[in-house]
């Protein structure tokens, strides 16, 4: 199983990715790693923070494991926009035109509460630096 290591402000969390349900999305995200960029709070999608980076764009990946709603600890991916979404509470994929679909890419399985605190901080403190790397495969 593919894993991601997400480090924000000294906290590192691990997410397990859905290799079987979202193979194109997992491959597209792995191709962008390691990724040092910024994570900012969502402005339309509720309790989640978003990494948007050109390296994450892959218009050929398509939406897999199609979802719209976010749940705490969920990792979602929008290959067309190049968005990687980390939810810390209830949310929904929304743009200026309404709701839309994203790929259900994985779930945070280690340090979820600590990561959630940092994600929530992006609303109170503004954007934070984030490092996303591939973790050890299991």
């Amino acid at each position, binding site marked *: 199983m593919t894993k991601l290591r997400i480090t924000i402000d000294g906290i590192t969390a691990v997410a397990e990715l859905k290799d079987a349900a979202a193979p194109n999305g997992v491959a597209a995200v792995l191709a962008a790693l390691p990724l040092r960029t910024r994570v900012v709070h969502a*402005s339309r999608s509720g*309790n989640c923070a978003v990494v948007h980076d050109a390296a994450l764009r892959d218009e050929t990946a398509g939406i897999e494991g199609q979802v719209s709603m976010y749940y705490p600890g969920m990792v979602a991916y929008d290959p067309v926009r190049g968005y990687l979404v980390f939810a810390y509470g209830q949310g929904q994929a929304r743009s*200026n035109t309404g709701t839309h679909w994203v790929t259900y890419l994985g779930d945070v399985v280690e340090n979820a509460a600590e990561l959630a605190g940092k994600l929530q901080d992006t*609303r*109170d403190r503004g954007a934070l630096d984030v490092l996303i790397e591939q973790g050890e495969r299991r």
Partner: protein
Amino acid sequence: MTEKRIRLESGGVTAEALLLEANAPKATAALWEMLAEPIERRLISAKWSGDVGVLHPGEGPLREVAELENPVTSIYPGTLVMRPRGSEILIGYGVGEYRWAVGVDYTTRLAKIVTNRTEFLSVVARTADQGPSAITVGRV
């Protein structure tokens, strides 16, 4: 009738907004009453509604205005809108629509910025990336 204006100050930038008294007579009257003394609050970025900044007025006359007046969902740049009972005032700086977790909701338009609009909306926009800033609202 003399037009009433309010002054908004944040990040060292000041703008004036014209109260939309004809559209929202109760809400604008309550806001005017509330601003007998300027209020200072935190201006934060929306998390459901798009390109808008949000401030929470707190206790005061706006709490008594429960109904919507000429309700809108879209929040256009330079427009100030209010959730019923004044729990939130939102300032649009881009493409915004009033939304909650459960979907779209309605607001009352309170005012539109008529001076220093571009500079002030830049300050509001910065809350999305740089975090909250202080905002002072008072009568002109």
